[in-house]
Each structure stands twice: as structure tokens, then as C-alpha cells.
């Protein structure tokens, strides 16, 4: 009796299951491939069109394989806008912000994770609360402070200083410092290390992955920022490259789009390099955001 019942509710025939699984796997492959093609096609188009002669840049049907190999577009990017300076500005702004964030957030994160002092939890909640404030809600007073108070408008400092204090980075690094067992600290103290040495020599190196995640995320965000420079910068020589690209598009509108696309290719190379070396940290950083839910 029981025997028969079990046999009755047995899984469906193996062949049917096999067909079903195959079929859905093929569907998955089809979906993944179509989306991948749609994602990659603009990249291919940008690169191949940037190598086309200006006359050909609007030609349809689009040629996906670059045939002209005309590098003069790249030359013209340098002639039309102060490209070298703008890339240099982007680097200066981005690196200064990354370094500033790493230093301040590592110190603050360590303090919140491992040091005990009155008012710590209240301060931590205040820092967390600032995470909820969107940049639009503060941009007008920051603009006034930078341009009238500090007289730094249209300088690179205007883009660096306000983005150094980071609640997000502090929170991220606090989590990292918290994961490191306290035994290390006790061992170091027995060896006669002082509090600064414990931080600098023991905890900071152990938090390196967290520092890398913060560095890569900040690099990507700051390099690609368009809104803040739009507000603070007026002089072309001091633009970061995001403004430079849109500026280039502005007066190339009726001319050759190949030159604009060449500029886009050039401006993207640094983030691609960062991605190649730091992708583990970038992906991990983003995934971690998802896990903390």
C-alpha cells in the first residue's frame, strides 16, 4: 500500500525532465546573448566610427568593422579642446578625492570600530543619517560656501574639498575594521606597540581590501561626475573631461561625430584600466551593498 503510493508520486519521466531543462537552458542562453549584444553594440559602433573619415561618419548602413582606420579624428580631439589639460584635471580631481576619502574614512572607520569613547554611538548615528541626504539638497549652500566664502569657484579645489568627507566610506571601512579579531591588538600591546602603531601597522594593512573597494568605487564615481563640475567650473582649461566631452559635442554638432566619439574613447580608457586591475573590488563592493540589504 505505502509502496504503491510512493511509486505513484514519483518524479515525471526522466526524458521529459531532460527536455524541459535543455529547453530552458537554451532560452537562458538566447536571452543572455541578446542582452550582451545590445550592451556591446554601442561600444563597437563608437570605436569603429571614431576611426572613420568625417565624411563617412554618418553613413548608413553602419559599418561595424573599422575600415578607414583614420586616426586623424583622435588628433583633432587634441586640437579642438584642451584635451590633455582636461584629462589631467580629471586625474587630479579624482586622485585627490580618492586619497582624501581613504585617509579620513580609514581614521573615522577605525575610531568607530575599535576605539571606545563617550558619544561614539551618537556620532555614528549622525554620520549614518547624512547618508540619506541627496547631493541636490546641499548643492546650493555648498556652491555659495565654495564660491563666496572660500573664493574657490572655478578651481579644482571646488570639486575636491566637498567630496572628501564620506559617510559611506566611513561606514564601509568600519565594517572592515570590525571583522578583524581583537586578539591582534592584545598581542601587539604585549609587544609594546602604542595605539597609533596598532592602527597603522596592524589594522590598516588588514583592512586593505576595504580600502581598495572604496578607492575603486570613488574613482569610478568621481571620474564620471558631470553635475558638480557643471555647477562649479567655467574655464575650459579647468574642465574635467566629462564637461570637455559634452563641450566638444556642442560645437562639433554639425561637423564630424567621429571626433566626438574619438574623445569618448580616449576619456574612457582610464576607467577601463582601473576596471581591469580593480574589477574584483568593484564587483565585490557593489555586491556587498546588495547583501547588507
Amino acid at each position, binding site marked *: 500500500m505505502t509502496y504503491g503510493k510512493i511509486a505513484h508520486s514519483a518524479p515525471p519521466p526522466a526524458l521529459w525532465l531532460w527536455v524541459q531543462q535543455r529547453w530552458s537552458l537554451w532560452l537562458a542562453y538566447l536571452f543572455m546573448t541578446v542582452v550582451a549584444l545590445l550592451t556591446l553594440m554601442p561600444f563597437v559602433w563608437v570605436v569603429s566610427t571614431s576611426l572613420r573619415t568625417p565624411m563617412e561618419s554618418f553613413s548608413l548602413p553602419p559599418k561595424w568593422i573599422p575600415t578607414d582606420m583614420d586616426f586623424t579624428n583622435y588628433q583633432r580631439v587634441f586640437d579642438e579642446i584642451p584635451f590633455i589639460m582636461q584629462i589631467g584635471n580629471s586625474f587630479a580631481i579624482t586622485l585627490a578625492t580618492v586619497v582624501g576619502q581613504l585617509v579620513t574614512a580609514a581614521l573615522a572607520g577605525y575610531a568607530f570600530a575599535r576605539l571606545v*569613547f563617550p558619544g561614539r554611538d551618537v556620532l555614528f548615528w549622525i554620520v549614518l543619517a547624512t547618508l*540619506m541626504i541627496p547631493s541636490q539638497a546641499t548643492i546650493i549652500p555648498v556652491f555659495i560656501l565654495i564660491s563666496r566664502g572660500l573664493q574657490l569657484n572655478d578651481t579644482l579645489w571646488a570639486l575636491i574639498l566637498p567630496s572628501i568627507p564620506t559617510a559611506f566610506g566611513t561606514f564601509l571601512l568600519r565594517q572592515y575594521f570590525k571583522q578583524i579579531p581583537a586578539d591582534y591588538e592584545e598581542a601587539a600591546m604585549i609587544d609594546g606597540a602604542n*595605539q*597609533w602603531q596598532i592602527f597603522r601597522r596592524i589594522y590598516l594593512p588588514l583592512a586593505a581590501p576595504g580600502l581598495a573597494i572604496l578607492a575603486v568605487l570613488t574613482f569610478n564615481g568621481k571620474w564620471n561626475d558631470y553635475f558638480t563640475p557643471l555647477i562649479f567650473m567655467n574655464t575650459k582649461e579647468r574642465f574635467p573631461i566629462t564637461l570637455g566631452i559634452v563641450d566638444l559635442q556642442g560645437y562639433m554638432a554639425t561637423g564630424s561625430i567621429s571626433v566626438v566619439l574619438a574623445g569618448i574613447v580616449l576619456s574612457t580608457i582610464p*576607467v577601463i584600466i582601473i576596471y581591469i586591475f580593480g574589477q574584483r573590488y568593484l564587483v565585490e563592493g557593489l555586491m556587498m551593498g*546588495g547583501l547588507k*540589504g
Partner: protein
Amino acid sequence: MLIHRTGAQKPKPASNWLRRWLAADTIDGIKRQRALLGYLFLAPTILGLLIFIIGPMLYTFFLSFHKWNVFRPPEFVGLDNFVRLFADARVGISYRNTFILVVMTVLLLEVMAFLLALAVNRIARTRLAYLYRTAYFLPVLLSGAAVSVTLGYLFHKDFGVINYYLGLLGIDKIPWLTSSDVVLITISLTTVWRNLGFTFIIYLGGLTSLPTEVLEAAEVDGATGWRKLRSIILPLMSPTILFATITDMIKMLQFFDEPFIMTRGGPGDASRTVVMMMYESGFGNLEFGYASAIALTLFAVILAVTGFQFYASRRFVFYQ
């Protein structure tokens, strides 16, 4: 002590007192050292946040009750800015546009990213999965500026590649950027293209960290395909889904780069977003009080969304 008697070194009274207070050979001294170090370490961040976030936030509140064009001192006008704002048809339109963009973009993003993550997760840890992941992630590296310029060309009505291929399928030229009926769809598609990889990575991270025991147990019980997805994976993924949806919503509420670069808010006001309205009233018309009021309404909306996240994560989300 010996040193004192020989007079080789003159002790400095102040530093001596401090040194004794912080002496490393007493428990209290170490505690004091760490407390002092704590405040020192926090000082740059706390000061920075006060100067560049908390202070400005309070000043935005202050400005929203004033009329101010920078040249003359702020003039108190009570609730005038808010009264004006709620009557301002253009602000209404910009909110309508923003909400349409948020709903359209976030729906598309979440559904596509989740399906993609499910698909890639089936072939997890293969080289092919890695290639797919890299492909989806590439646009995340680009700036809104580069993406807007590029897709602006692709969406061009007469010279654009997209209309060319649609033409081959027998579809008439679509005025992607020049028709007020279509422009929001265009901007939404552009944003989906740029952000899909980001949301996808979050979902993939969630899927790969699902407890394998539970999934295997479900398979042993004969749950396959749709059943497994609905009764096991979706509930387990609900914290991730909530997080990704809210993150994307907040990001999209602050829509600026794409519409600003691709259409300047046009045609007419058809793609003007709230942040663009704020930007133009503040930095264009120098009405900083009014712009602050607009910024505050957007802040309120974002706070409401965040508040909903807290509420929803208690009510609906399944935590293991």
C-alpha cells in the same frame, strides 16, 4: 629619580602631566589614550560632514523660506516659495516626468537584471558566465555624459543606427528625441542601458550567496523550475530585491545627466526632471530660495521612499 638629581634633563611640567595622564602602563591611561585618539581620528570626517553636508542641509531649509538672488541679503518670505512651487505648472510637469521615468526605468531594470542574474547563475563559475558578466558591466564604467552623447547619436531620427535597423524591419522612423510622446521612453532606455550591469551584479551577488542546503533540499523534494523560483528563490531574494529597487529608485529620482545632455529637457518641457528644474531656477535664474524649496520637496520624496524601505523590510521581506 636619577635623571632629576643629575639635572641632565629638565622635565616639562605640562607634557609630564599629560604623559602621566595617558600613561600606557595603566588601564585608565590606555583608555584615555584610545578616547583621545578616537576624537582625533573622527575630527576630519565629522568636521567635513558638518561643513559640507549637515550645515548646507540646514542652510537649504533656511533658504527655502527666503527670497535670495545672491546680490542682496536673503529676504524672509515665509511659505511663499512652497506656495509658488505647488502652483507652478512646470514643477508639476517635471515631477510627472520624473515619476514616469522612475517607474518605467526601475521596472525594466529590476525585471531584466533579475532574469539575467538567474540565467547567468545557471552557468555560474564557467568562463562564459564571466564573459557575460563583464559585458553587462562595461556600461557601468561610463559617465552619464559619454553615454548620453553616444546614445543620442544612435537614437537620431534620420542618421541614427537604431532607426536604420528598425527601418529594415519595416518600422517607420521614430522621433526618439524630438517627440514629446517618445522622449521619456528614449531616456529611460538609455538609463537602463547604462545601469543594467549595476543592478545585475547586485542580483547575481544575492543569488550566489543563497544557502545551497535549502536549494538542494527543495530539489530533493521535487521542486523544479517555476515552483522553485516562486516558493524558494523569490522569498530568499526578497531583501536583495527590496534593496536594489529602492537604490535604483533613489538614483532615478535624481535623474539629471541623460535628459540634460540629450534633450535639454525638451521638446518643450517633455523631458524636464525635478533636478533640472532646481538647477535652472538656482543656477540659471539665480532664484536660490525657490531652488532650495524644490530641492527640499525632492528630499522629502526620497526620505519617504527610504522610510518605505524600512517599513517594507519589516513587513514583507523574508529574512532567513
